[in-house]
């Protein structure tokens, strides 16, 4: 159950990033590139934090990369 919730939290967080990025770019129409870039960066950092605090804590140790 923990794993399912952690996975759902991670998937939801990154799906929210995709939705937010589309809404930001499509609604602001490229008028100010810095103003559009910063909120996208903010939602990515939020999703990363959810991934680190929730998903990675449950699924940690599943890989070796370096």
């Amino acid at each position, binding site marked *: 159950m923990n794993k399912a919730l952690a996975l759902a939290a*991670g998937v939801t967080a*990154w799906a929210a*990033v*995709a939705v937010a*990025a*589309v809404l930001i*770019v*499509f609604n602001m*129409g*490229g008028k100010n*590139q810095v103003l*559009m*870039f910063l909120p*996208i*960066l903010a939602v*990515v950092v939020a*999703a*990363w934090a959810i*991934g680190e605090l929730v*998903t*990675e804590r449950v*699924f940690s140790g*599943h*890989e070796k*990369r*370096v």
Partner: protein
Amino acid sequence: MALLQRTFEKRELRDPSPIRAIFSNTWLASLWLLARLYLGYQWLLAGSHKVWGEGRWIAVSGPDGLSLRSFWERAIAIPEQGRPAITYDWYRDFLTSMVNHEWYRWFSWVIALGEVTVGILLIVGAFAGLAALAGAFMNFNFMLAGSASINPVLVVIALLILFGWKTAGWIGVDRWLLPALGTPWQPGPVFRRVLKGRVANEACPVCQMPVDPAISPASAYNGLIYLSCCPVCKERLDAQPARYIPDFGPAIPVPVEG
């Protein structure tokens, strides 16, 4: 003969540590994130103009892709004075053929939705390397069609992300997606099979090459699983198991794949 042998013998040339630090180590993931976000943002912005707003390419009143047709027609035109936009004749013939077949009607959807998809994948860091490759391919085509714009900058960033595909999506979905799916040469848990039974060997019984429980062909004898390094060795093992398995007895079938 010795010269050819020396030239083409198998040698693995390892990357120096600075290259590995940049492209294979997660400590630079934040820099890759910025590169990814910039590139993804540019693609999403370009795609948004094509699927949204007054100058969109698709879902317009009348046939789709008329804007794309205008772009192609400008690109393939050969001016009386000066140089044409397209340098390569084969590419001009390719675009001319697409215009003549009215492929702009469906190709405009491919480009518009492709740009949006590449932008989203880069921003969320899902299949970042493949998304960068797809973006670079679109940049390449725009440049071949004579449109420079910011394409040279985007293609360089895309190629860098492509080289750093292992860590480019570390702050993103790839952190979990890539280990789960694995690669064609090393499948992840999603595709990794589960062997029901005890594996008896670590090296191929036929040629002594190392075996991998995830992908090596399996045979079952005497209640144990024997892995071969390749299908050819499995065929030889199955044809003459007593020759390759020292304590071979009567064959007892056990389930191999779960």
